[in-house]
């Protein structure tokens, strides 16, 4: 098991290297000259040739590409992503608090998503084709089909404006979490509980269920076994859900004025703040790879067959 974990972890390192390189390349493929962007952002009225050359030197842009990449990568390892072109502040000092806020929102949502999907998935699988199953699936279909900004708008109108129970925006108290978390959780749980449900139903037809029953094991034990086997599929899905939510909170964060990565990234993209965008992409990609690694490890812990595969 430990051997597997170490191997799996080592594999993710070259992956991260490739990702960091691609991030760097993609940003530098942009037709805009960073020096020009910086000068524009600083409000320099007339951009002369000399000024451009000088800025390029300051930013180290006159160095060969590979050297620039290596220098950038080395500093990234120390969480130094350079300074924002726009404000001149270090990127990390802007990114870190936003990242933390988004992580908080994501974690709370992910928790709710996991609980909701498992409960709904199990209940629907056990009541397959009955009223409960049909109702839950009907509602979830409706809710997941609704764009999250529409759902957010309805909830804000109902709970914040009409009933005046919850704050409309910001991140001031625990109650600020309720609406954004619901909007995120509802749309994802609606998808994920189906995965659990269908996985439970597949397992229900397995021979080991028949044999368990034939040995007189009580239904609750059999359900537990089925759930344990179904969760194998779900674990990897859940683990991947975390970075997906991290990267897709843009709409919700903007709707609820949540001071997180989503809001920050939109701002940075609009102002072409390259170091910010680079850092944002790199942080998200790293989160993806890490969660993927973690999900594989958890899966290996539940599924002994996988352990031997690597």
């Amino acid at each position, binding site marked *: 098991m430990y051997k597997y974990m170490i191997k799996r972890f080592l594999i993710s390192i070259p992956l991260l290297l490739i990702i960091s390189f691609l991030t760097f390349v993609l940003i530098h493929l942009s037709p805009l000259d960073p020096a020009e962007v910086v000068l524009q952002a600083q409000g320099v009225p007339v951009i002369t040739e000399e000024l451009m050359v000088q800025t390029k030197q300051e930013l180290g842009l006159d160095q060969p590409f590979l050297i620039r990449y290596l220098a950038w990568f080395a500093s990234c390892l120390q969480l130094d992503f350079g300074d924002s072109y726009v404000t001149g502040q270090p990127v990390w000092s802007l990114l870190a608090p936003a990242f933390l806020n988004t992580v908080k929102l994501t974690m709370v949502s992910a928790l709710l998503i996991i609980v909701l999907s498992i409960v709904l998935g199990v209940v629907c699988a056990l009541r397959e084709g009955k009223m409960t199953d049909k109702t839950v699936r009907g509602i979830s279909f409706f809710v997941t089909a609704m764009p999250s900004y529409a759902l957010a708008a309805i909830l804000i109108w109902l709970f914040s404006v009409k009933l005046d129970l919850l704050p409309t925006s910001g991140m001031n108290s625990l109650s600020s979490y309720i609406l954004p978390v619901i909007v995120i959780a509802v749309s994802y749980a609606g998808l994920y509980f189906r995965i659990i449900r269908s996985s439970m139903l597949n397992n229900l*037809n397995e021979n080991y269920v*028949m044999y368990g*029953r*034939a*040995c*007189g*094991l009580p239904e609750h034990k059999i359900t537990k*076994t089925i759930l*344990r086997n179904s969760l194998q599929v779900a674990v990897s899905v859940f683990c991947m859900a975390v970075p997906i939510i991290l990267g897709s909170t843009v709409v919700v964060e903007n709707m609820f004025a949540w001071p997180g990565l989503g809001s920050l990234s939109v701002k940075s993209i609009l102002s072409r703040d390259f170091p910010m965008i680079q850092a944002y992409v790199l942080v998200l990609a790293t989160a993806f790879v890490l969660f993927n690694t973690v999900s594989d490890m958890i899966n290996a812990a539940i599924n*002994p067959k996988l352990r031997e595969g690597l």
Partner: protein
Amino acid sequence: MPNFLEVNHLKVWDKSSGEVILHDSSFKVNAESCLAVVGESGSGKSVTCRAIMRLNKPWVSQSGEILLHGENLSFLSDKEMRQKRGKTMYLIMQHGMSAFDPSTVVGVHLYETLKQHFGWNKHEAAGHMSIAMKSVMLKEPMEIMNKYPHQLSGGMLQRIMIALALVLEPDLIIADEPTTALDTISQYEVLEQFLQLRERLGCSMIFVSHDLGMVRKLADEVLVMKNGVIVEQGSTESIFTAAKHEYTRYLVSTKQTLNDHFKSVMGGQGVAKR
């Protein structure tokens, strides 16, 4: 001696499609005797086995009488039925490989089953299982019980199911093609175990098989099925020597030609005796 298991007018159908799977099956299994069920694929052998245990899928309905020791199983509540399963009637499955929960070691299933029926703790259960497993030629039982199903062979898993039967001591064992998924050598070994199982437990048995050679060795009576209908039943000898029904004669004769072929390939040596 009264019949141990009596099935009267068993009808099984698929509720959703209305398709009738078993039309009107009636048969008996005497105490301490073995009834073999043969027939082509899809003839309803497995459905019959599951109907006796009341383990068919929820969309499959059944009607008719299933009398075990004179008690009609159809009238039992789910809970009473569950207490019978494992303890009184025990099913040995065709695919040992998929019969155990793949996410845990095989011991867990054994402990839970024995806890359910005897209230034993893990230690007691392991003790009883060890003895039973050794007697079906599974050496180092403790190690085997700590293995995952995929780490064991089909033959070993089949023998674990047999060992569990030895501990549970059911009155009726239903074995649904227990050897089909095995290679020839394991088939032979598992057959030996079945012969011993009958001897030791003195239980009744329903043995589903494609292998008429095995049937002849193990069974007292044979039931021949085709398309959900019992076309012939009688003592093993009469089925093999004087089958009345066309289909039975066909089954016996194809077996014979296969055997002859096998004999000629093997140079007519003693191997083909079974």
